[in-house]
């Protein structure tokens, strides 16, 4: 168990020169209907036996090895263990005999849109378990029914009299293992509506077997996109136009082309809104990067000229005061003249800062185009490669590698664009690797967002008004009418339009503001700002009312029993406030889950120490509780990091931070002890990767207020404590 058999040797040594060696052989009726897998995610027990497909999610070898396909990419969230567990539980197979492989781009492997009525092959939005839950349960249950049918047929008994357990079918004293039944089973009709287990019969779901992807992540063999090595491979480095809104005027490659190992330099224009770039191709990563450093490029700053932090602030102020306010939600009658508490909250642009710099490898031959990359949307990668090269989509294969962090940034395909453009110019595979400076300079940042909130605290929290001003990240991807529809705005206002708190008079407006800076999905999306805005302003209201923030929240959650239970669990688990420490609490519901957090801190002479964060999450039915704890722990850490020091500044439309030394991120020494408690539930699964983030900055800032009386309304906290204490 847990042995990793990545088809790495095959890929890395032979794939460039020979036809793709498939990791399996197929000789069964279903095989023709199952799209071939052509990626590199292979985890778990290895078998040399011949597999037989029962459907497009699962096949079984005669030695009992069960191969389950994982529709999501693995970017650390543990999907490559949790998703196969869902099918394996319904199948009643032996988990120790399960191996896992990725999927090609194919309609069969799209997940439910979760929030939208469309199916997509995109890992994001905390939707892996939610999006594949029904498909995997049905696929497992159907396969189990076919195996039972095969055994019943063989034994001359009724299927109803057979049971399954750990990879065997049983009836009275008869036992047959799946491996011996699978050939016959494959010929059995698949039930149209397979009978699923009841939750009380789950044997795997709700347990935490060791993650299948971790052994290779501990010994250094896990194959990330950046690790792809192919015969004769060239290496590319890119210089994107640093000025958002700018463009390429000209470049002089003569000096670069004279450098040893450099084979080409060319300019390109993005087809996914990333602007212009100059690309260098060389015979090694280092040579390509060095060459790109000395490229002589003239950029026109265009709309980026003069775009700096002050200009951004001015535009937001203008939008707040005079912009087109779109009413989103109204209940009761909020009247401005009743508002006695008012505050303006702000958050800055943020970079995802995944530690694996963006990269992609492409190889174009007469047979088509092959792409190796760690991308959240392999479908998007295929599509952009088609747009650039004109190669038909069915001749473009996407080999999804391990992702060294996604956080939303790898839902973009700019690196794939560069790799494909480069591969069109040389007769060899080309890998582009971004420098960290390029990763900072060309992003899909969490947008700047401001919120002006007002509250009527006459005799309790009677009224609440929120005015959000935001650069809508969807503006660059969707037509205007969609951006201004509910669909487009949901990325901005969620958390305010259906607050779990009982506030009689509510009003919510949003105002869009446009900048040429590219923005996108950043872990927890709207929650990354609205959790901070809402939960800190609620704290302000509690103090204005002279009420304890914990007690007030409990009262306001009287009609939201699920939220109240999560909140109470976190507070109860946190126990009494440790002597000398100060406490902040926060709650936020997002991506189908509810998370509450308690932060215990001290501030001494302006020096903040976060001692402990206690969290509770209700994510409905949980497949792998330890992964849920890990995701919440990680999201808390990222949330605290963003709150403490992260901020992108701009000058002439260009990001001023070039590397980590100018973008302070949380390190181990600043990280609190984190305890996560999972609410037992039989409700449908919720999301897990993102809901842990939104409460973290708020719980921290509320604790800071309790400790110091300083109300943080602008993130990051930066030096606000030392400057004002």
């Amino acid at each position: 168990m847990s042995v990793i058999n990545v088809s790495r040797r095959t890929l890395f040594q032979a794939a460039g020169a020979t036809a793709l060696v498939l990791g399996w052989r197929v000789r069964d009726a279903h095989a023709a209907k199952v799209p071939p897998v052509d990626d590199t995610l292979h985890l778990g027990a290895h078998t040399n036996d011949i597999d037989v497909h029962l459907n497009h999610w699962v096949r079984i070898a005669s030695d009992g090895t069960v191969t389950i396909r994982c529709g999501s990419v693995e970017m650390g969230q543990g999907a490559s263990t949790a998703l196969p567990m869902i099918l394996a539980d319904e199948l009643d197979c032996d988990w120790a005999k399960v191996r896992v492989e990725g999927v090609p781009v194919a309609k069969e492997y799209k997940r439910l849109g979760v929030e939208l009525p469309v199916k997509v092959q995109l890992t994001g939005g905390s939707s892996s378990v939610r999006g594949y839950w029904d498909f995997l349960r049905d696929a497992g249950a159907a396969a189990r029914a076919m195996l039972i049918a095969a055994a019943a047929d063989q034994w001359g008994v009724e299927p109803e009299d057979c049971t399954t357990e750990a990879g065997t079918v049983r009836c009275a004293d008869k036992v047959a293992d799946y491996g011996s039944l699978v050939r016959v089973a494959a010929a059995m009709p698949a039930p149209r509506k397979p009978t699923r287990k009841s939750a009380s019969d789950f044997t795997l779901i709700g347990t935490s077997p060791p993650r299948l992807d971790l052994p290779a992540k501990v010994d250094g063999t896990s194959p990330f996109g950046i690790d792809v090595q192919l015969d004769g491979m060239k290496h590319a480095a890119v210089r994107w136009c640093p000025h958002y809104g700018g463009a390429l005027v000209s470049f002089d490659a003569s000096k670069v082309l004279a450098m040893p190992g450099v084979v080409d330099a060319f300019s390109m224009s993005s087809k996914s809104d990333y602007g212009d770039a100059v690309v260098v191709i060389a015979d090694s990563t280092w040579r390509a990067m060095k060459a790109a450093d000395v490229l002589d490029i003239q950029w026109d700053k265009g709309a980026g000229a003069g775009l700096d932090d002050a200009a951004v602030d001015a535009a937001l102020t203008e939008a707040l005061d005079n912009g087109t306010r779109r009413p989103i939600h109204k209940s009761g009658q909020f009247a401005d003249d009743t508002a006695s508490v008012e505050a303006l909250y702000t958050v800055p642009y943020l970079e995802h800062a995944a530690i694996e710099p963006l990269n992609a490898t492409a190889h174009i031959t007469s047979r088509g185009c092959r792409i190796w990359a760690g991308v959240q949307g392999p479908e998007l990668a295929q599509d952009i490669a088609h747009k650039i090269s004109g190669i038909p989509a069915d001749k473009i294969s996407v080999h999804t590698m391990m992702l060294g962090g996604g956080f939303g940034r790898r839902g973009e395909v700019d690196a794939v664009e560069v790799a494909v453009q480069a591969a069109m110019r040389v007769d060899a595979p080309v890998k582009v690797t971004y420098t960290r400076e390029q990763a900072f300079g060309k992003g899909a940042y969490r947008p700047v967002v401001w919120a002006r909130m007002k509250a009527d605290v006459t005799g309790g929290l009677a009224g609440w008004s929120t005015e959000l001003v935001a650069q809508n990240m969807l503006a660059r991807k969707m037509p205007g009418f969609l951006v201004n529809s509910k669909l487009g705005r949901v990325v901005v206002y969620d958390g305010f339009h259906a607050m779990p708190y009982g506030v009689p008079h509510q009003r919510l407006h949003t105002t869009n503001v446009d900048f040429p800076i590219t923005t996108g999905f950043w872990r927890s999306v709207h929650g990354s700002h609205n959790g901070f805005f809402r939960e800190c302003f609620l704290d302000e209201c509690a103090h204005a009312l002279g009420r304890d923030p914990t007690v007030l929240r409990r009262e306001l959650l009287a009609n939201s029993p699920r939220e109240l239970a999560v909140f109470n669990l976190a507070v109860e688990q946190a126990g009494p406030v440790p002597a000398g420490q100060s406490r902040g609490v926060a709650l936020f519901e997002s991506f189908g889950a509810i998370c509450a957090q308690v932060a215990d801190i001290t501030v001494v002479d302006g020096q903040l120490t976060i001692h402990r964060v206690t969290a509770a999450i209700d994510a409905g039915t949980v497949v792998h509780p330890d992964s849920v704890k890990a995701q919440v722990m990680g999201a808390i850490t990222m949330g605290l990091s963003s709150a403490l020091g992260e901020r992108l500044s701009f000058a002439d439309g260009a990001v001023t931070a070039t590397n980590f030394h100018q973008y302070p991120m949380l390190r181990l020494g600043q990280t609190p002890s984190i305890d996560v408690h999972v609410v037992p539930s039989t409700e449908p699964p919720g999301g897990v990767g993102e809901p842990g983030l939104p409460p973290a900055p708020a719980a921290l800032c509320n604790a800071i207020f309790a400790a110091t009386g300083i109300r943080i309304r602008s993130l990051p906290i930066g030096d606000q404590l030392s400057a004002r204490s």
Partner: protein
Amino acid sequence: MAKLRVNGVDHNIDVPADTPLLWVVRDHIGLTGSKFGCGLGQCGACTMHLNGAPVRACVLPVSAAVGQEVVTIEGLGDHPLKQAWLDFQVPQCGYCQSGQLMAAAGLLADNPRPTNADIGEAMTNICRCGTYDRIRRAIHQAAAALPEPPPPVEEADGEDAPEEPLPADLDAGGAGPSSAPGGMVR
């Protein structure tokens, strides 16, 4: 042409002397466990050992490593940290973990019973997934699996009693399958 010794194996390399050790190891020798993260010695994803001490290979010219002993994650061997990393299910995306492990191995070689403060000071590698809390717990466990350090020679007065390596709040059963390491946790 120079000889570079990595994980006990000599490699003939022919690259400019200022090429960072990281790129020689990754692109020329083909050992890809050490990662590129920043190119500025900031994030630690590239951490290797040079003569037993952790170094950030993305900013170390290969010329400084020629004639020295270089060890990468592939050469770390059967270190108790690896088992601790699995017991606590530390990695998420896993990209920074080679560097984290090499940094932790360097720490334990120097300081077999580190306190939380020692760990915080030595472990400056960035993990964007936020696995720090589990890394800290795993280092304590691995330290406990290492042989007792020899008793200090001086300090007979007992003034500098070693700190408790696992404070109560770190052992309270939060994140991490600490109750049944590496096993099924219901």
